[in-house]
């Protein structure tokens, strides 16, 4: 493909705030997107293969990978799954995604949806495959592990690796808070208050005096309200949506507190949970976490700390059995591959972009 001047426009689509790194986004033309890719990575090993998918729409789908780095088994599997797509129309990358992923029932995304060229380059050098769909401003990166989804470009661009590692770990902790905090609160306060420090128990009891609902109902109502406010924020036009959601949120919380319908501690818990969930970079993963929150809350409501532990086991059982194009979803933590920790769990200090062995061809 010929390399010409960049013709890809940089459109501000505020999905993530970026402090460093290229802001170049993909356009809706597959030719332009591939052109910008070849411009940034003029490597003879960069290979593209074209597919026509959709019996009616005849949509052009192109896969790109570095043939000296990518695992041939994974590439062949992706090609095979693309060839098997029977859809009539391909309107978006999501149509391809749901047809090629390993588990459609899983709440966890098994491919990464990317709109920036620089992220694609990193993925290709890791040995992953980029899938371009015509008329879509996002591309698919496959395979994708859990840790890829919690990765942000700044982790690689930040000057000091210690800060990057710190913020990564903080993100994992936020993930755990977002999934388990409300259920932990319900379990402790409703079933095992003896495990809470006595001063804190007294504070919670005092704050809850006169409130009509049991703790679990308070938690469910407030989490539900938070979801409604969040949906308003997304659906309404930018400034209006923001103003309405902030106004609605503050009014509801204040009125609830003043009229003693809800207690203070649950507002702290729900607030912390919602904030923590926004630290998760991917939209799809974030949405799944919200559903998992309700699942863990339900288990904690029914069976207390034991139910919480069991729901945690269920989530982990699912994560340990899930694979993405043959790669274990929790690699490099399960199975432990220490060589991959430098750019997944931590960020190691190195002049080059840290690499791992997760997606590379394996030694026979």
């Amino acid at each position, binding site marked *: 493909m010929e390399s010409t001047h960049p013709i890809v426009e940089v459109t501000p689509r505020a999905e993530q705030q970026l402090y460093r790194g290229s802001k170049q986004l993909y356009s809706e033309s597959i030719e332009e997107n591939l052109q910008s890719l070849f411009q940034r990575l003029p490597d003879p090993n960069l290979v593209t293969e074209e597919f026509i998918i959709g019996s009616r729409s005849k949509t052009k789908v192109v896969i790109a990978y570095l043939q000296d780095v990518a695992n041939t*088994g994974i590439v*062949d599997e992706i090609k095979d799954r693309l060839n098997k797509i029977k859809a009539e129309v391909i309107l978006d990358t999501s149509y391809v995604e749901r047809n090629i992923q390993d588990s459609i029932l899983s709440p966890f995304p098994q491919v990464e949806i990317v709109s920036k060229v620089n992220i694609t380059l990193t993925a290709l050098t890791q040995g992953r495959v980029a899938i371009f769909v015509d008329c879509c401003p996002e591309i698919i990166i496959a395979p994708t592990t859990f840790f890829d989804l919690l990765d942000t470009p700044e982790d690689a661009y930040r000057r000091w690796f210690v800060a990057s590692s710190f913020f990564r770990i903080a993100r994992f902790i936020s993930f755990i808070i977002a999934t388990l905090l409300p259920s932990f609160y319900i379990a402790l306060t409703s079933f095992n208050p003896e495990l809470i420090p006595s001063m804190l128990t007294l504070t919670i009891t005092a704050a809850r005096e006169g409130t009509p609902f049991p703790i679990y109902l308070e938690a469910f109502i407030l989490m539900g309200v938070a979801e409604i406010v969040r949906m308003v924020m997304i659906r309404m036009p930018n400034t209006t949506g923001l103003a309405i959601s902030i106004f609605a949120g503050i009014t509801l919380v204040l009125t609830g507190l003043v009229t003693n319908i809800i207690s203070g501690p649950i507002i702290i818990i729900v607030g912390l949970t919602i904030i923590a969930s926004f630290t998760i970079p991917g939209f799809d993963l974030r949405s799944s976490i919200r559903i998992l929150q309700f699942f863990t809350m339900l288990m904690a409501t029914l069976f207390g700390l*034991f139910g919480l532990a069991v729901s945690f*086991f269920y989530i982990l059982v*699912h994560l340990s059995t899930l694979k993405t*194009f043959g790669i274990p979803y929790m690699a490099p933590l399960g199975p*432990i591959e220490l060589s991959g920790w430098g750019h997944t769990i931590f960020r190691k200090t190195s002049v080059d972009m840290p690499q791992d062995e997760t997606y590379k061809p394996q030694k026979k």
Partner: protein
Amino acid sequence: MTMTIKENVKDKIDPRAIPLILLLTIIEFELFTVARKVFLIAGRDSWLAALLGGIFVTLGTYFLLRLMNRFPKQNFLQYIPQIWGKPIALIIALGYFLFWGSFLTLLFKNTAEVNQVFFLEKTPLLIPIFLIAIGAVWLVTYGFVPIIRFIQIISPVFLIPILLAILLTLSEIEIRNFFPILANGITPVLKGAVIYAGYFQGLEVILFLSPFLADTNKAFKPTLIGIGLLNMLAFVSITLVIGILGIKNTNEMLWPAFAMMSIIEIPGFPAERFELLLTVPLLIGVFVTISVTLYLLSYGIIQVFKISHKKTVIYVMALITILAIMLVPDFAWYIKFRGIHTYAAIIFIYFLPISTLTLAVLRKKGEYL
């Protein structure tokens, strides 16, 4: 040439994962809440029994590894017919199935009891058991490698609270609780050491690892490190319990380790009740042990009787072992049965595999002739 994903992305276990596998598979209620019977027999010299028992366990592990290395591509149930002959091998296999089945029933029973003591007082016993069993069955249907992945993922949540608990309790030890040493002679210590070795139920998993390992020759060191860590952990917890509670109090308590945690006080620290630190790893240890034992039992039956409906066997085995709880009338009976099971464990973990190794060497079976 087109390669399938299975040919290209191999699902093998790195031998370096073995220490974690052993830690989480072997630790469950008894060893975790500190082996009660060892205390009853060896008294305040239980720490000596643990040291001596640790040597027995390490020796036993060495022989298990030798046996595994002779048959690197097969598991124990696959190669015993070559060594013992088909009829005896079948009897041995049935013995193991009974051993694992009864162990599972004991584990389920204990899950229910612990749950009643610590979490859900009024909930019917079968509910927590089924909740745990659903997770275990789900994991086991995917085979052995996902179980190992589960162990690796959950290991930080398991290890960090245990290490914290040890660090918090270390300063509370009173040395006088250990004296006089060997007041009742060496015999109780020796008996305690044998019982201690019997508590390592799950050690036989080594004999089933080899087909999944990326390199069986590299399994020696990590396995011995794993057993060393496990012995150290058991020794530290036994020492802590005696050092903090004293042998008299320990023998009167059903859950000495939890009693030990309740006495911790840290001035200025917001948390007061540290039992929670131990309940998390306890549940994890139990869940993993149940999953691994259910795997050994179901896949053993599938393999020996060449059954094609794998999932059905797993469901049926889980159900039978759960329903067998009805045969356990009360907790006192449970403790008695658990004691007998510990003696049986010595036969199934050490005696039978070592006899198999001896016979394999004599009959020149296996790769290392």
